[in-house]
């Protein structure tokens, strides 16, 4: 799975949890989950659980704490996949 494919897969997960006033186009690698995409903490957990299933990886509490932006998520996914 290439980098673009991973990003696309992540976007597809994130868009499920976007509030109605945030559009899919607003998702970029720099987007901050809670501050820019308005995703609440409960939905951030949903995203992590979906990411685990989609990429067949397991995230720890530390990973969750570091996952502030889309870029952070991609970095953590890359790290876990290559483990």
């Amino acid at each position, binding site marked *: 799975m290439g980098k673009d494919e991973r990003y696309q897969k992540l976007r597809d997960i994130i868009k499920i949890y976007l509030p109605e006033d945030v559009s899919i186009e607003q998702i970029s690698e720099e987007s901050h989950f809670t501050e820019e995409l308005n995703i*609440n*903490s*409960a939905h*951030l957990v949903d995203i*992590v*659980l979906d990411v685990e299933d989609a990429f067949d990886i397991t995230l720890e509490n530390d990973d*969750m704490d570091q996952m502030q932006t889309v870029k952070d998520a991609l970095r953590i996914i890359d790290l876990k996949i290559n483990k």
Partner: protein
Amino acid sequence: MPEKMGMRTSILNKLPYSEPFLFVDELIAVDENGAEGRFTFLKASDFYKGHFRNNPVTPGVLLTECCAQIGLVCLGIYLLGDNGKGEVAQPQIGLSSSEMEFLLPVFPGETVTVRSEKLYFRFNKLKCKVKMYNSDHKMVCRGTIAGMIKANSNV
């Protein structure tokens, strides 16, 4: 953690509710996978005056709340575990979603039993299946409730 009477009492003591919004009388059982508790809706409760006028029925929103307090919050406090001082932690909670189905009415004075089954507890989010039964063991409502729960470090 083996279940003890003392554990259940200390969980009840840490519930962040009080009259008139406490909907747990008794915690019958709690373990890693779920909780079971009981509550009696008092006939004299104020909301029966208005729900419905001249026809008192317990509001579904309060059945949901009762399911959440017993099934989710009591279980959540258990799952948070020890606060480092040999007692259960004081929880900080927020409901994040609920999807309920209501099957039978609950009238003033009825005692209900709630049973929950943990779906997952990860990254402070607890999601449970809940079921409520009346004293005839008939199912009153069921659904899925989720919330964020963490130990309040300021207490």
